């Protein structure tokens, strides 16, 4: 069976949930091979094996880690040309999408971004994408090369499939190219909340929240549900919450199990970033707000009274 390369995201002893989702999808297409930049700890290897990686390829090389995009592209390109590879799967983060694009140029292969599902039909890899802000569902395929596919977090539930992977060292060659170098790096969000794109629950606040300090209420609800905090552009532009939390066309696209929109009207540009959430709840004092067209459950009311009550209810029910 051909192999499917999966670019793993890991930090210290943890593997990102999206990587486990990619390994789960990879098993539908071939034998999953986990590609790890850096030296994977034994617990990382065990975790990858738990989700079906038959081989863990480690590239523990400063040149790969410190060059912008190019190092990882070189690594993946050499693996594709030296092995029997059916597809390359990466997470749909901005940085991994760049790797995918560059790799596709180098391999002259089709690149498919933001897949929400990946299947194999008659030996052909087919992806499902949700385009135009989630209003249209598309099935697409690559017509040449091993398809390079980025998959949105939360597209599939990770399923275990225990194996004991062999750990191999991936060959890293100096390509002699001129690359941008990372001279320093400071990780974002050391805090306790999950990342916005990976979270299964996102609680988002908009202009209706009213003030920066009122976002504490949104954070409290997010924490009660172990979720991440999002914001509309009106809220980030007002400086009430960091830009990184902006959900929508010019922000992050999220597809959580649950999205709770508080004081957000539901402009088309905001919907573009959250429309594919499995369940949507909206709290808005204007019964005519377009967000209610999307909401599975909507409350016409003041978020400043509804949200505290909801938080209290959640705590009460969790005991």
């Amino acid at each position, binding site marked *: 069976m051909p192999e499917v390369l999966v670019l793993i995201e890991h930090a210290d002893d943890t593997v990102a949930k999206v990587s486990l989702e990619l390994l789960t999808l990879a098993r539908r297409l071939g034998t999953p091979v986990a590609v790890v930049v850096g030296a994977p700890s034994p617990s990382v290897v065990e975790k990858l094996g738990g989700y079906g990686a038959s081989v863990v390829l480690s590239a523990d090389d400063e040149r790969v880690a410190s060059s912008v995009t190019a190092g990882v592209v070189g690594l993946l390109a050499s693996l594709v040309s030296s092995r029997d590879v059916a597809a390359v799967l990466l997470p749909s983060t901005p940085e991994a999408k760049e790797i995918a694009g560059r790799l596709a140029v180098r391999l002259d292969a089709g690149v498919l971004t933001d897949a929400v599902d990946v299947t194999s039909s008659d030996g052909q890899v087919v992806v499902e994408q949700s385009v135009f802000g989630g209003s249209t569902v598309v099935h697409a395929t690559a017509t040449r090369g091993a398809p390079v596919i980025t998959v949105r977090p939360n597209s599939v539930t990770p399923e275990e499939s225990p194996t004991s992977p062999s750990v191999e060292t991936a060959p890293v060659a100096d390509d002699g190219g001129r690359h941008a170098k990372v001279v320093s790096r400071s990780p974002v969000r050391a805090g306790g909340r999950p990342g916005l794109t990976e979270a299964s629950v996102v609680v988002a606040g908009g202009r209706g929240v009213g003030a920066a300090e009122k976002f504490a209420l949104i954070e409290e609800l997010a924490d009660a549900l172990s979720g991440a905090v999002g914001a509309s552009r009106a809220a980030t532009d007002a400086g009430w919450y960091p830009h990184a939390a902006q959900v929508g066309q010019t922000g992050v696209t999220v597809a959580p199990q649950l999205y709770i929109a508080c004081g957000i009207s539901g402009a088309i540009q905001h919907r573009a970033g959250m429309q594919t959430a499995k369940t949507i709840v909206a709290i808005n004092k204007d019964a005519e707000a377009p967000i209610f067209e999307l909401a*599975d459950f909507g409350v016409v009311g003041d978020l400043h009274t509804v949200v505290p009550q909801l938080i209290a209810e959640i705590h009460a029910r969790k005991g």
Partner: protein
Amino acid sequence: MKIVVCVKQVPDTWSEKRLDPADQTLDRAAADGVIDELDTYAIEEALRLKESQDGSTVVVLAMGPASAAETLRKALSMGADEAVHVVDDALHGSDALATSLVLAKAIERIGYDLVLLGSESTDARMGVMAAMLAERLGVPQASLASAVAVDGPTLRVTRVTSAAQEEVEATLPAVVSVLEKINEPRYPSFKGIMAAKSKPTSTLSLGDLSIDPSAVGLGAAATKVLDSTARPPRGERTVIKDEGDAGARVADFLASRKLL
């Protein structure tokens, strides 16, 4: 310093977008074309770099149908010096690979120290073009920038990824894509709008770029849309008016969906 800014004409975000049922490409006739809002940040950054360095020029480059000339004019009215429009019927249906091939050839022909792009187009939303151009041009990629500084031949960029904020260094020439938070794009002034009318604008065909028409367009695409359907409307919806118990009723709903 010579700065080339890639600008894309996209359907207005307020308009309905759909795929042409005949060939599954974006039905551009069905939507009004406007300059991609994200690209105005790249133009603004180019203008600021130009203003900080004497003798700099800003060339805006678009690949797209004849109507994309409007987008270039908007860029000129913001203050860019010159516009180049790659237009050719054979380009219809080009995928990202082909687009990057065409843009790279045009950029080489124009000549450049720095190429600036938006980090993602608002219609395709692939976010791949800066990386693809760096690959094709064989120059450093310093993308996803929230700050850009040029100091002699050295380029310094603050790069924001989903996991980290990075300080990145490269030597020019290089390719940079910018994030929305990098600046506040200026509005064209009346003077700028008038001046745009007399600024040099040239068009290039595939022949001018020595690109074989069979290497681009729908027929050459490395990806293919098999089918497209409108997303089915969401299932049953409930909207209640808060009667003092809405918090509890949301909790009931979440519990019924096993979300608590």
